[in-house]
C-alpha cells in the first residue's frame, strides 16, 4: 500500500515538471521496454511470461524491432499452454530468417511436438516448421513431415500436405528427391475430402512455381472421379481448389465433359460467391468441350439458364464482391450474350452504390441494351446524368451515345436527351454531350443537322480539347449548312497558338472542308495553313503541307475529303476472341478482373527464377515501355516507349478503338518480357482453343486472328484465314518443306511449340541490344551486297541466332526484298524458320514464306543461311506510336523460339509510296469505332 502511494506521489511530481525535464526523466522507460520484457519473459510465473509474449507480438505488429528477444521468447516454447505456444510460433515465423543459428535450438522441440499425442499440436508443429524458411532446418523437417503425411489424423495430414508446398518453395529439388511430391499425389486418393482438397491446392501451388519443369498435377480419369467425389463434401475453399483444377483439365470425350457439368451445376447454389464463380468458370470451359455433340445445345441452354440467377444474386452481396462479379459478368456476356438477357434492371445503379460499382454496371448495361429495353435504359441514363460524380456522369452520357449508335430506333430520343443536357450549360455535361453528338453525326450523316445551331451557341462553354475538336468536326463537316461557319472557325484561328494539338489538327481539317464547300473562306484556309506549317509539331506541319500540296495541285481533294464513311456500332472494351477465351478459362482470377492477358499478371517463369533483385529491374523496364491502352493492355513493341514518350500517350488517347482492335489480343510480347513470355502464352492459347479445332479450319479462324494480335501483326486476315491449317494440327505437320507457300502458314509455324528451352538471356539486355542493332541498322539502300550486311539482331540478343540483313530492291516496296543472313551460334541446329512483319507505314509484308526462300531449311551450329525474302506492300496500317514511320518490326521464329528486331526501310521507298498511299487509305476509316473521332479523321484524308 505504501509503495503504491509513494509511486503515485512520484508520478505526480514528474507530471508537474516542465516538458523537457519530464522527457529526460521518462525516456529510459521506453528504451528499456525490451529489457523489461526480457525480465518478464524469464519470469517464473506462467501468466507473466504469457503477457510478455503478447506484448512482444503487439510490438512486432506495429513494426517495432523485437528480434533481440529471440532467445528469451524461445525459452517459452516448452509449454503445455497451446495459446502460448501459438504465440511463440508466431514470433518464430517472423524472426527465423534473421536468426538462423538460434532457430536450430527450436528444432528439437518442433520434432518433439510433431510426435505429440495431440493432433492439434502435431499439426501446429508441422505448419510452423514449414513457415520458418531457414535453410538449415529443412533437413530436420524431412522426418517429421514424412511421418505426418501418413498420420492417422486427417487434420494433421491436410496440414502436412500444405507443408510440402512450403518446403518445395524453399528447396524444390530435395522435396522431389525425398518423394514428398509423390506422397502428395498419393494423398489425392485420401478418404478425407479436405485432405484431397489441400493436396490439390498444394500440387497446384507446386505446378505454378516458376521452377517446376514437369507437370505434377496430372488429372486423369481416375483422379477426376476422386476430385468429383471430394467436391461434394469438402469445405467451401476446398471446393474452389478442386473446381480450379477441374477448369484446367481437358476431358477425354463429350460424355466425360457432360458428366462434369452435371456434377458442377449444383455448386451454383452455394452461399460463397467465389465457389459460384469458380463453378461458372468450369461450366463455361466445359461447354466448349461439348462442341457440336448431340444434345450439346440443350445442355448449353440449361446451364446458361441456371447461371443467370446466381449471377444476379452476386450483385446483392458486398460492394467489393459486386465489383468482381460485374467485371466477370462483362466477360461472360461476351461469350454467352444470352445469359442475362432479361435481367437488365438489376444492373440499374443505386444512388448509394460506390462509384466503381456504378461504372461497371453501366458497362454491363450497355452490353445488354437492346431494342426491347432501350427506353428504360435511356430514362435511367438521364437520371444518372444529373448526379454529382463527374466521371460517372461522363460515362453515362457516353453510354447514351452508345445507345444511339447501337440502336437506330433510339437515336432520336438520345439526341433529344443530349440536347436537354447541353442546355443545362454545366461544363462537363455539355462537353461530353458534344463529343457524343459528334459520333452520332458520324453514324447517321445528315439526319440531325437541325440541332447544329444549338450546339454552336455553346461554344463558349467548351474548354476541353476533345469537345472543341468535336465541335470543329461538326462545323467542318456541315459547313455548307452553317451560314457563319467561317466566322466560327475564325474564332479558333485567332487563338490557334493556344489550342491543344488535337484541336489544331481538327481545325486544319475543318478549315479545308469548309473551303471546299464555301470557296469564299479561302483567306481563312490560307491563314490556317500558314499557321500550321509554321508549327514545331511534325504531325501538324506535315499534314498541313500535304493538304497544301493537294490543294495547289488541283487534285480531286473533294473526293478524298468528302468521303467520310459513316461509322458502325462497335461495343467498347470488346475483348478479342483469343483473349476472351483465355479469360473465360481464368474467370474470377486477377487477369479476368483486370481483363488483361494472364501473361501480364503472372510473370514469365524465367524472370522469377533470377531472383528478387532482378525482378525489380524488369519491372522498371516493362512499365514504361508497355504503354497502357485504354484497357491497360500493353502495346506490343520491342522498342521502349521511352524513346519518344511525348507522342505516345496523346496518340493512345485519341485512337482508343484502333488500339483495342489491334493490340487487345493477348499481347504478351511487350518489350523486354516478349522473348520469355511469348512462347508460353502462345502455347496457352493453343491449349485454349476448343479441341475440335482440328476438324474445322473455320473454327480455327478466330484463334488465328488473335494470334496475329499476339505478334502485333495487323494483316487483313479475314479472307485468308480459311486457308490456314488448324493450329492443333501444326505440331504434327511442322516441317519447313511441307509448309504451303503462304504467309499464314508461316504464321502457323510460329504457333508451333518451341522445343528448345529459351536461354535466360532473353530479357532486358536483349532488348537493349536489339535497340542498338536497330539504330546501327540505318543505312543506305544501295549498299552493295558484297559488303557485310548490317547486324539486325546481335547473337546474344537473339538467343544465339544472329541476323544480318537489309532491304534491297528498286525504288518502291512492292518489288523490293529483304535480304537476310542467319548465323547459328547455338549448339543445336535451327530449323522451321518463319517470319512476320508488324504493321508499318508502308504495309510491308513478306510475299513468301521464309522457309521457302532460305538457302537451307536447317541451319547447323556455326553455319550461316541466307534468304532473299520478296516483299509485298499491302494496305498501309497505322504505325505503332512507339516506332518511327520508317521502321518495321519483324518477328522471326525458329526452333529456338521467337526473336524480334527492327529494320529500317530505305528512304526512297517512303517517298515512292507517299503519294499512292492516300488513295488506298480511306478504307481504314471503317475500322474506327464511335470514339475514334478526330484522331482518325486526319488519316482519312
Amino acid at each position, binding site marked *: 500500500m505504501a509503495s503504491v502511494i509513494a509511486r503515485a506521489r512520484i508520478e505526480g511530481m514528474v507530471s508537474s515538471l516542465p516538458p523537457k525535464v519530464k522527457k529526460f526523466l521518462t525516456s529510459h522507460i521506453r528504451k528499456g521496454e525490451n529489457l523489461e520484457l526480457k525480465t518478464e519473459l524469464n519470469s517464473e510465473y506462467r501468466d507473466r511470461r504469457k503477457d510478455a509474449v*503478447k506484448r512482444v*507480438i503487439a510490438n512486432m*505488429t506495429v513494426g517495432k524491432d523485437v528480434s533481440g528477444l529471440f532467445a528469451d521468447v524461445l525459452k517459452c516454447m516448452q509449454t503445455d*499452454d*497451446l*495459446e502460448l505456444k501459438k504465440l511463440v510460433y508466431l514470433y518464430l515465423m517472423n524472426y527465423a530468417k534473421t536468426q538462423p543459428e538460434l532457430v536450430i535450438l527450436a528444432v528439437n522441440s518442433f520434432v518433439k511436438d510433431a510426435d505429440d499425442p*495431440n*493432433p*492439434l*499440436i502435431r*499439426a501446429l508443429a508441422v505448419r510452423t516448421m514449414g*513457415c520458418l524458411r531457414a535453410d538449415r532446418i529443412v533437413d530436420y523437417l524431412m522426418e517429421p513431415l514424412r511421418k505426418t503425411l501418413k498420420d492417422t*489424423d*486427417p*487434420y494433421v495430414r491436410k496440414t502436412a500436405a*500444405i507443408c510440402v508446398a512450403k518446403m518445395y518453395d524453399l528447396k524444390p529439388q530435395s522435396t522431389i528427391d525425398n518423394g514428398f511430391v509423390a506422397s502428395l499425389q498419393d494423398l489425392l486418393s485420401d478418404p*478425407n*475430402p479436405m485432405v484431397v482438397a*489441400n493436396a490439390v*491446392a498444394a500440387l497446384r*501451388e507446386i505446378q505454378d512455381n516458376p521452377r517446376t519443369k514437369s507437370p505434377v498435377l496430372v488429372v486423369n480419369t481416375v483422379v477426376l472421379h476422386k476430385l468429383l467425389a471430394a467436391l461434394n*463434401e469438402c*469445405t467451401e*475453399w476446398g471446393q*474452389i*481448389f478442386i473446381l480450379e483444377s477441374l477448369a484446367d483439365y481437358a476431358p477425354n470425350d463429350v460424355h466425360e465433359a457432360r458428366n462434369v457439368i452435371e456434377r458442377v451445376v449444383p455448386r451454383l*447454389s*452455394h*452461399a*460463397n460467391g*467465389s465457389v459460384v464463380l469458380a463453378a461458372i468458370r468450369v461450366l463455361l470451359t466445359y461447354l466448349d468441350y461439348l462442341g457440336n455433340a448431340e444434345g450439346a445445345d440443350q445442355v448449353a441452354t440449361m446451364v446458361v439458364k441456371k447461371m443467370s*440467377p*446466381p449471377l444476379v*444474386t452476386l450483385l446483392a452481396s458486398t*460492394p*467489393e*464482391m459486386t*465489383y*468482381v*462479379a460485374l467485371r466477370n459478368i462483362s466477360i461472360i456476356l461476351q461469350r454467352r450474350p444470352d445469359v442475362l438477357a432479361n435481367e437488365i434492371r*438489376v444492373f*440499374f445503379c443505386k444512388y448509394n452504390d460506390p*462509384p*466503381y460499382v456504378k461504372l461497371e454496371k453501366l458497362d454491363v448495361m450497355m452490353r445488354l441494351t437492346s431494342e426491347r429495353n432501350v427506353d428504360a435504359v435511356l*430514362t435511367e441514363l438521364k*437520371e444518372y446524368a*444529373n448526379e454529382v460524380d463527374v466521371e460517372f456522369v461522363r460515362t453515362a452520357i457516353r453510354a447514351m451515345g452508345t445507345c444511339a449508335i447501337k440502336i437506330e430506333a433510339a437515336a432520336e430520343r438520345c439526341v433529344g436527351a443530349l440536347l436537354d443536357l447541353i442546355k*443545362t450549360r*454545366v461544363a462537363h455535361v455539355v462537353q461530353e454531350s458534344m463529343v457524343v453528338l459528334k459520333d452520332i453525326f458520324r453514324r447517321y450523316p445528315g439526319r440531325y443537322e437541325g440541332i447544329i445551331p444549338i450546339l454552336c451557341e455553346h461554344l463558349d462553354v467548351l474548354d476541353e480539347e476533345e469537345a472543341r475538336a468535336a465541335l470543329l468536326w461538326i462545323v467542318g463537316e456541315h459547313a455548307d449548312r452553317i451560314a457563319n461557319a467561317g466566322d466560327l472557325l475564325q474564332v479558333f484561328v485567332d487563338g490557334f497558338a493556344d489550342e491543344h494539338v488535337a484541336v489544331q489538327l481538327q481545325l486544319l481539317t475543318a478549315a479545308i472542308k469548309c473551303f471546299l464547300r464555301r470557296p469564299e473562306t479561302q483567306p481563312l484556309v490560307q491563314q490556317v495553313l500558314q499557321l500550321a506549317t509554321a508549327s514545331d509539331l511534325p504531325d501538324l506541319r506535315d499534314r498541313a503541307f500535304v493538304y497544301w500540296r493537294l490543294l495547289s495541285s488541283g487534285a480531286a481533294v473533294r473526293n478524298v475529303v468528302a468521303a467520310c464513311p459513316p461509322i458502325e456500332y462497335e461495343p467498347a472494351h470488346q475483348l478479342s476472341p483469343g483473349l476472351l477465351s483465355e479469360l473465360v478459362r*481464368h474467370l474470377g*482470377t*486477377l*487477369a479476368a*478482373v*483486370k481483363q488483361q492477358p*494472364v501473361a501480364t*499478371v*503472372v*510473370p514469365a517463369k524465367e524472370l*522469377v527464377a533470377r531472383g528478387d533483385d532482378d525482378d525489380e529491374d524488369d519491372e522498371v523496364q516493362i512499365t514504361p515501355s508497355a504503354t497502357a491502352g485504354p484497357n491497360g493492355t500493353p502495346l506490343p513493341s520491342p522498342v521502349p516507349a521511352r524513346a519518344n514518350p511525348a507522342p505516345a500517350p496523346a496518340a493512345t488517347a485519341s485512337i482508343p478503338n484502333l488500339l483495342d482492335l489491334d493490340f487487345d489480343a493477348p499481347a504478351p510480347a511487350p518489350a523486354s518480357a516478349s522473348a520469355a513470355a511469348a512462347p508460353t502464352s502462345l502455347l496457352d492459347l493453343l491449349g485454349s482453343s476448343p479441341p475440335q479445332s482440328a476438324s474445322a479450319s473455320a473454327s480455327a479462324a478466330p484463334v488465328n486472328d488473335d494470334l496475329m494480335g499476339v505478334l502485333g501483326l495487323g494483316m487483313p486476315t479475314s479472307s485468308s484465314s480459311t486457308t490456314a491449317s488448324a493450329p492443333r494440327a501444326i505440331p504434327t505437320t511442322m516441317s519447313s518443306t511441307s509448309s504451303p507457300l503462304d504467309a499464314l502458314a508461316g504464321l502457323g509455324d510460329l504457333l508451333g511449340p518451341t522445343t528448345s528451352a529459351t536461354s535466360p538471356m532473353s530479357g532486358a539486355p536483349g532488348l537493349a541490344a536489339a535497340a542498338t542493332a536497330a539504330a546501327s541498322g540505318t543505312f543506305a539502300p544501295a549498299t552493295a551486297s558484297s559488303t557485310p550486311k548490317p547486324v539486325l539482331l546481335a547473337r546474344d540478343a537473339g538467343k544465339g541466332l544472329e541476323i544480318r540483313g537489309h532491304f534491297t530492291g528498286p525504288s518502291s516496296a512492292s518489288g523490293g526484298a529483304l535480304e537476310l543472313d542467319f548465323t547459328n551460334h547455338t549448339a543445336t541446329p535451327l530449323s522451321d524458320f518463319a517470319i512476320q512483319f508488324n504493321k508499318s507505314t508502308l504495309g510491308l509484308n513478306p510475299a513468301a514464306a521464309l522457309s521457302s526462300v532460305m538457302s537451307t531449311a536447317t541451319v547447323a551450329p556455326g553455319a550461316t543461311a541466307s534468304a532473299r525474302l520478296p516483299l509485298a506492300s499491302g494496305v498501309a496500317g497505322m504505325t505503332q506510336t512507339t516506332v518511327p514511320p520508317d521502321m518495321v518490326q519483324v518477328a522471326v521464329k525458329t526452333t529456338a523460339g521467337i526473336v524480334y528486331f527492327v529494320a529500317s526501310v530505305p528512304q526512297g521507298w517512303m517517298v515512292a509510296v507517299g503519294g499512292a498511299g492516300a488513295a488506298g487509305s480511306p478504307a481504314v476509316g471503317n475500322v474506327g469505332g464511335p470514339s475514334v473521332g478526330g484522331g482518325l479523321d486526319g488519316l482519312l484524308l
Partner: protein
Amino acid sequence: MISAVFVFNYKGEVLISRLFRPDVRRSVADLFRIHVITAPQIRSPVTVLGNIAFFHIKHENVYIVAVSTHSNTNVPLAFEFCTNLVKLGEKYFGKFDEDAIKNNFVLIYEILDEILDFGLPQVSDYESLKLYVTTESVRSENAAAPGDASKVTIQATGATSWRRPDIKYRKNEVFIDVIEDVNLLMSTKGTVLNADVTGTVKVKAYLSGVPECKFGLNERLGEGAGAGAGGAGAPQSQYGAKRLVDIDDFQFHQCVKLGRFDPDRTISFIPPDGEFDLMKYRTTEGLTMPFMVHPVVTSISPTRLEYKVTVKAQFPQKYTATGVVIKIPTPPNTVTVQGLGAFAQGHGKAKYVASENCIVWKVPRIMGGAEMDLNAEAELAPSIDSNKKPWSRPPISMAFTVAMFTTSGLQVRFLKVFEKSGYQTVKWVRYHARAGNYQFRF
C-alpha cells in the same frame, strides 16, 4: 493465393499484419497506405501496384486487406476470405472495429493462423473453429486433451465439419426466422424500376444427436418435394394456403446437400449446432410492397421548395410496421424546413437534420392500410453562383420492419427432423419484412 493479410485503421496504422508467404515484406503495408488509404478517390477495391495486388474491403472503421503477388489470384476468393474474417471476428468478439481488434489481436492472429495456411484458406467455419480456437486460454487446455482433440480434428476435416456427434439437449427445439429484405427503386413517374426481395432463413437448432432435416417452403418447384407436415405458425392467410411463390435463386449453407437439391428440389441437411443461415433466396415475382411513398416536391420560388409526401401502408390491417424512418433529402443550401410540427395523432415526428441534408420522419408504429401525409416547406439560401449545377435530388429512402409478414408471400411449409432416437421436436417460425434498399426518386 493470399500472401499477406493486413488490417489498417482509417489513419493508415497497421493493426494486424500477418505474412503467409515469403514473397512479400512487411513494407508493402506502406504501399497500400500511400496508394489507397491516403489516395483521395479509390476507383476500385482491386489495386495492382507493380507485381503486388491488394484486395481490400472496408468494415466499420478499418480496412481489411489481402495481398497477393506474382500469381493469377482468385479474386472473389480473396474478397470472400476478407468478409469471412470479419464475420468470424464478429462471432468471436461481437464487433470487428478498431477497438475490438486492438483488444483481441492475439485471438485474431490465432484465427488467421488457423484459417489461412500458406495463403490457402482452410477451415473457416465458426462452429468447428470455436472448438479449438477459444477466447479463454483455460478452455484451450481442456481442448488440448488428446482424446478430445482428435474428435475436434476429425470434425474439422470431416464431411460434416459443422457438427459434433455427441450433442444432447433435454428439449429439442428449432427456431426458424424468415427475414426478407425488400429492395425497391421507384422512378420519378411512379413506376417500379427495380423490385426484389432477398430473404434469409435463419435457423437456431438445439437438437440432440446427428439429425437429418428436411425443409419445405410454399415454393412453386419445391411443391413436389413432400406433403406438408408440421409447419408452425403460418401467417398470411389472406393468400390462402395454396399460394405458391416463384423463387429466382437459392443459396444454401454448406450443410445443405446441393447434390440432392438440384434434381428434386429437396432441401435436406444436417444442421450445425446453434444459429446459422440455412439459405438465402431472391425473388422478384408477385411481391406486395409494404409501403408506397408519393412525393410531390415543387419549387415555388428559387428559395422555397414545397414538399408533399404521402406514405401508404399497403400490407393487411392485422400487421403492424415498426421503426419506420423516412429520409427525405433537401438541397444542400437549405436554411430551415417549416411545417414539420403539425402532425396528426400517431403520425410520428419529423425534423430537419442539417448534417445529413434531409428531413427525418420517424413513426414508431404504423397499422396496415394506414395513410399519412407530410407537408413542409424548405427555405433555401439564395445561390450566388448562377451557373451551379441544379440539385441532383437524391432518392427518398425508407427503413421499416413488419413482423409476421413476408413481401414475397413465402411460408415455411414443413421442417422434418429425422434422428435415430426419434425424439419430438418443437418448432417455431417467425417472419420479418425489412426495408433493404427502399428508395423513391422524385
